[in-house]
């Protein structure tokens, strides 16, 4: 079975902390994504990567950065966590191909910033 694994299911951090959310996929996919899910807002794209060391901003990149040093791993970094970053974070991957390729998702990390 193909898998996208997010390192933590639940995470509680303090305001101002540096937070790392890790995502690993075992499908050799080129494309990886970080989404944020909030009630009533659906999924919003934070950053995505189409190759190692390559990244592009999504719709809401402010306050976030990403790292992709290896093909299978895509990390989301909150440089200085704030309470408005309390949310569900979903990682996804997708193979190289057409726009009809489906996304494979992890199980999400529910982050609370106190």
């Amino acid at each position: 079975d193909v898998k996208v694994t997010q390192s933590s299911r639940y995470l509680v951090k303090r305001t101002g902390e540096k937070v790392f959310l890790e995502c690993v996929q075992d499908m050799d996919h080129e494309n990886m994504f970080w989404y944020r899910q909030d009630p009533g807002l659906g999924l919003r794209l934070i950053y995505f990567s189409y190759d190692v060391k390559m990244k592009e901003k999504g719709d809401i990149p402010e306050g976030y950065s990403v790292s992709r040093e290896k093909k299978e791993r895509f990390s989301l970094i909150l440089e200085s966590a704030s309470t408005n970053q309390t949310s569900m974070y979903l990682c996804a991957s997708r193979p190289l191909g057409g726009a009809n390729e489906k996304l494979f998702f992890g199980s999400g990390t529910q982050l609370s910033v106190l």
Partner: protein
Amino acid sequence: AQTVTQSQPEMSVQEAETVTLSCTYDTSESDYYLFWYKQPPSRQMILVIRQEAYKQQNATENRFSVNFQKAAKSFSLKISDSQLGDAAMYFCAYTATSSGSARQLTFGSGTQLTVLP
């Protein structure tokens, strides 16, 4: 900018009955793909069904089918013979064909479906 609208935050259906979830979108592109994703309580999002805009025939996957109205920019999901396992949050999503696989999907706000025994 493309937008996807799901106007029903919550829906419920009796087990074995049929339910339709609504989705409308706005785009100036002529060629694109539309998707329905399901997020059960486990939070693992999975693809339910996808539709290519240039295909007039509505996509079907077992009990799931879509009603794709390109002119009206409408893409509804019909679930027949609803089962308890269908209870989930359903998201409609859009991507332009020109985007390629590296580009993002635009998601709607979701519809929470409850299946009543």
